[in-house]
């Protein structure tokens, strides 16, 4: 496992992916910093809702697709699949490390989003202490909610050499978020809406989710198991 991780790291280290990490946090922070605050809501809850909503409604799920396609790009363009899989490595190991790389990149994006939330609060002049516990919980939950999406996107990204094809699958499922995420009846069951639902704060108190925690867990873990199993089965059996 360790050699595969090192090889992935080498491929990512000097790539343009680092540039892509900053887009969403910067944009979300900017929108948070320029939002007009409502006086009767706790300022951090308000800012968290603004910044995280901007970040997670569309950008985060779509970015999951971009990163998944990115970690497969090197193999697709240089005929690298044959070369990589001819090494004494397990296909499932290669696949899982690619998934790990995607989730690692997403973790960096999530942490940068915390920084941009903090910065937005400072620019808005919020004086109450930063609710670290609640913010980190929601950021981690949003990150975990990307797991099923990353598993599915990795499956289509290994299948298609084109960058745009897997991303269009991603867009087809993510755009309905604009309607689905606002629906109390259907939102909690739509995997692509989970990142935003997991990241939004509950207005009543810190540390709770907008949707019931057990539904959140069931939907995220259930779809993750299905997508990961499908992707692994396909990748370990396909002809390269």
């Amino acid at each position, binding site marked *: 496992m360790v050699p595969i991780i090192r090889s992935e790291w080498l491929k990512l280290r000097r790539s*343009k*992916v680092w*540039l*892509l990490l900053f*887009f*969403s946090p910067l*944009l979300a922070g900017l*929108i948070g910093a320029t939002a007009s605050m409502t006086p009767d809501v706790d300022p951090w809850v308000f800012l968290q809702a603004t910044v995280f909503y*901007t970040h997670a*409604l*569309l*950008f985060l799920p*779509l*970015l999951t697709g*971009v990163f998944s*396609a*990115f970690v497969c*790009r090197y193999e697709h*363009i240089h005929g690298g699949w044959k070369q990589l899989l001819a090494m004494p490595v397990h296909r499932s190991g290669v696949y899982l490390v690619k998934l790990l790389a995607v989730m690692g990149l997403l973790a960096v994006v999530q942490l940068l989003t915390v920084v941009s939330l903090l910065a937005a609060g400072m620019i808005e002049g919020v004086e109450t202490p930063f609710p670290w516990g609640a913010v980190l919980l929601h950021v981690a939950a949003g990150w975990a909610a990307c797991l099923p999406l990353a598993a599915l996107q990795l499956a289509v990204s290994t299948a298609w*050499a*084109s*960058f*745009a*094809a897997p*991303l*269009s699958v991603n*867009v*087809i499922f993510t*755009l*309905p978020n*604009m*309607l689905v995420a606002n629906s109390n009846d259907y939102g909690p069951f739509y995997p692509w809406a989970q990142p935003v639902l997991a990241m939004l704060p509950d207005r009543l108190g810190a540390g709770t989710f907008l949707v019931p925690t057990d539904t959140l867990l069931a939907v995220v873990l259930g779809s993750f198991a299905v997508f990961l199993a499908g992707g692994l089965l396909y990748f370990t059996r396909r002809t390269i």
Partner: protein
Amino acid sequence: MGNILASEFLKLRRKMVWFLVVIGPTGVIALQALNYGLRFDFLMKQYASDPWGYLMINVSNLLVPALLMGMTIISSMIASLEHQTNAWKQTVALPVGRTRLYLGKFGVTALLLLGSTTLAMVGTILLGLLLGHELEALPWKSLLIAMYGSFLSALPYLAVQVWLSVAISNQAVPLTIGIAGLVVSIFVLNGPSSLDWLPWKWPFLVRAEPMYSMVAGLLTGAVFYLLGTIHFVRKDVG
């Protein structure tokens, strides 16, 4: 010009692009059909004063994001025809001016998306009739503005996407910039009118300010198209 477009369309045979051109508008209409179907009585009562108008707003609030993403993805696919096979050198070496090559890439993308827009318009009318709205009451002018007007106002976005997709071989960059554009446009959608100068707002603004958005879209789009052409003509390919 005809030759160039014919050659671009030939390259697109049996490609996924066609699926996207159809699935985009179909998906938008299907989602709205679902939205109306799930709470039919409630929405009909709420929209009784202007059923077609509200239908158009609902459709276009989903259609514009789909159109922007379509522009991003299809530009990338059209440029990838050359990127993926390392064929830019060969294409550029053909006895065709680079200006015309670029026009072909832009033209084919624009035509495909115009096709999608037309499908969306037909779909809106069909959905409206299905919901029991009367055809005589259909405000054609607003419908054309909501559909083709959005397309015209989104031309700067398209011109930038075609430019970036052709110029940068790593398609992650144009795709991420396209996604960022979509997010900006959704968040300035209800912003104050002091932000009306932002090109990302125009595809939504077109319903309220049709002339301004369409003219600004055409002009700004032309500027970015020209910049893209100049860059492509001087660029070292391969």
